[in-house]
């Protein structure tokens, strides 16, 4: 596709393959291809811009007003101006929530903020031990109860500790759960209620952690978590692999939920602010 200058059907097929295999999703891709066809008809055969640039432009116009919302203000995220700044991290099983919390805590610490982490996953084997290690690595306080405890109780204690110890940030880890499990989603609602009762504006951020290797099901996940517990942003993990995570473009377009951060590895530094232009460029690399 690179270097081609005309939008013939063969090129459109090649573009379709690139877009679909980045998990953008059929509907959005069809919409994009239709715009390209119209554009080719209008501009005719003397289209001299690189196909890549045309694609970027069309993708950005498809996402038009969402592009503004997606401009993640990294600086203000890590300097929130409210204390304690409460972040709840949610998502389905194995997407990278616990690891992402370690990375976020580390970023806050680098900005000179004090952090406390709540072990809200009281269900999965080894969950609090795993989070404890990330708390130690990032120099964060840590609140946990025994295995099988009520996650709401852990969050209650952690929030009180955050206030009492005048911590800048509280990050709440939750157990992975499929969005289709009604009782588990109810539990999440209950955890949120515990926070809101203590601090009405809490949680100030609710981040959905999505795995870049997941396909169209990410859209269902985003819808359900948004409906049940509200979402302020997405963290897209495992982008250091070969998956492109294109489904977030459909999520941005259809649900207006912005990606705030991306995960680029298993180390504590492997977190970056999301940049839509960089992301779109990477789709074609």
């Amino acid at each position, binding site marked *: 596709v690179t270097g081609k200058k005309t939008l013939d059907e063969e090129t459109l097929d090649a573009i379709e*393959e690139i877009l*679909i*295999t*980045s*998990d953008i*999703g*059929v509907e959005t891709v069809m919409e994009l291809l239709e715009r390209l066809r119209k554009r080719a008809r209008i501009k005719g055969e003397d289209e001299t811009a690189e196909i890549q640039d045309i694609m970027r432009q069309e993708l950005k116009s498809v996402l038009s007003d969402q592009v503004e919302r997606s401009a993640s203000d990294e600086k203000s995220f890590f300097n929130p101006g409210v204390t304690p700044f409460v972040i709840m991290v949610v998502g*389905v*099983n*194995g*997407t*990278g929530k616990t690891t992402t919390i370690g990375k976020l805590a580390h970023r806050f610490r680098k900005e000179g903020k004090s952090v406390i982490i709540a072990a809200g996953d009281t*269900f*999965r*084997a*080894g969950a609090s*031990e*795993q989070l*404890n*290690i*990330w708390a130690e690595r990032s120099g964060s306080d840590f609140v946990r109860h025994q*295995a099988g405890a009520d996650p709401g109780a852990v969050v209650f204690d952690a929030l009180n500790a955050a206030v009492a110890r005048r911590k800048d940030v509280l990050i709440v880890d939750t157990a992975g759960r*499929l*969005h*289709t499990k009604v009782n588990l989603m109810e539990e999440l609602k209950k955890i949120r209620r515990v926070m809101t009762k203590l601090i009405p504006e809490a949680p100030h951020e609710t981040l959905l952690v999505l*795995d*870049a*290797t*997941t*396909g*169209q*099901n*990410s859209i*269902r996940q985003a819808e359900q978590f948004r409906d049940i517990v509200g979402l302020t942003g997405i963290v897209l993990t*495992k982008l*250091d*692999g*070969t*998956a*492109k995570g294109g*489904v977030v473009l459909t999520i941005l377009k259809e649900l207006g939920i912005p990606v705030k951060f991306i995960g680029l590895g*298993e180390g504590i530094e492997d977190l970056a602010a999301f940049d839509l232009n960089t992301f779109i460029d990477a789709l074609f690399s």
Partner: protein
Amino acid sequence: DLTRKLDHVLKKIKGQGKLSEKNIADSLREVRKVLLEADVNYKVAKEFVKSVQEKSLGQAVLKSITPGQQIVKIIYDELTRLMGQSTASLRFANIPPTIFMATGLQGSGKTTFVGKLALYLRGQKHSPLMVAADIYRPAAIDQLKTIGKQLNIPVFSEDGKNPIQICWDSIQQARQNGNDVVIFDTAGRLHIDENMMKELSEIKEKTKPHNIFFVADGMTGQDAVKAATEFNNWLAYDGVVLTKMDGDARGGAALSIKAVTGKPIMFVGMGEKFNTLEQFHPDRMASRILG
């Protein structure tokens, strides 16, 4: 809702009287769309539709008074055939222990699968030993030890050894303790991480597992083929486990992986508890993908 979409497409095909070649092409374009929405790999979906089209353009279908019914049957049969005729079975060593190895990308459900497989094998009157060969992920060994306590199944772990040594030493332990099946839990890794993939092939070379599994997340999208192919190139694994299928992911990755690697899907993970391992049923998977 995708279930209603394909139903709608298939009803349209079934409801038509005589079909022209154009009718068939249009309907199959719709079917391709449904497959892509179900996360079936782009190339696999293209090939599938092409083969259904070829079969559908046969004179028998075009001359039939219910061509739509025939095409729907061709679609279901072709999909079920591609998914694998029947479940492959586990290999057991003539002289114990039999060695199992779980591999895959980060977070796919390997450690949980190791617990499920151990419980399943004990139910089949075996004496399993689970091996904590993930020395990287924080508290991975704690996780497996906790699972071992919950299931009352022994876990082998060693401080200060590399995963190849740990796996090797676990076999000697199994022989001493009379464990006739040994299951390695390995660290999640990227198929493009040469060093980590090399580690897996070194474990394979040294311990010669009888059953190597590629454990894949059932919600995986287009990337399924890349990872499955690379892991197969490095390990020539014996079978695939598709996890987290208790959600509403359509599971197109199942078709993609089977079609591209030819390796059988042996188990399906249907929950977080350890008694949720199920045999893979190709016909059920076909219905799920088609919605």
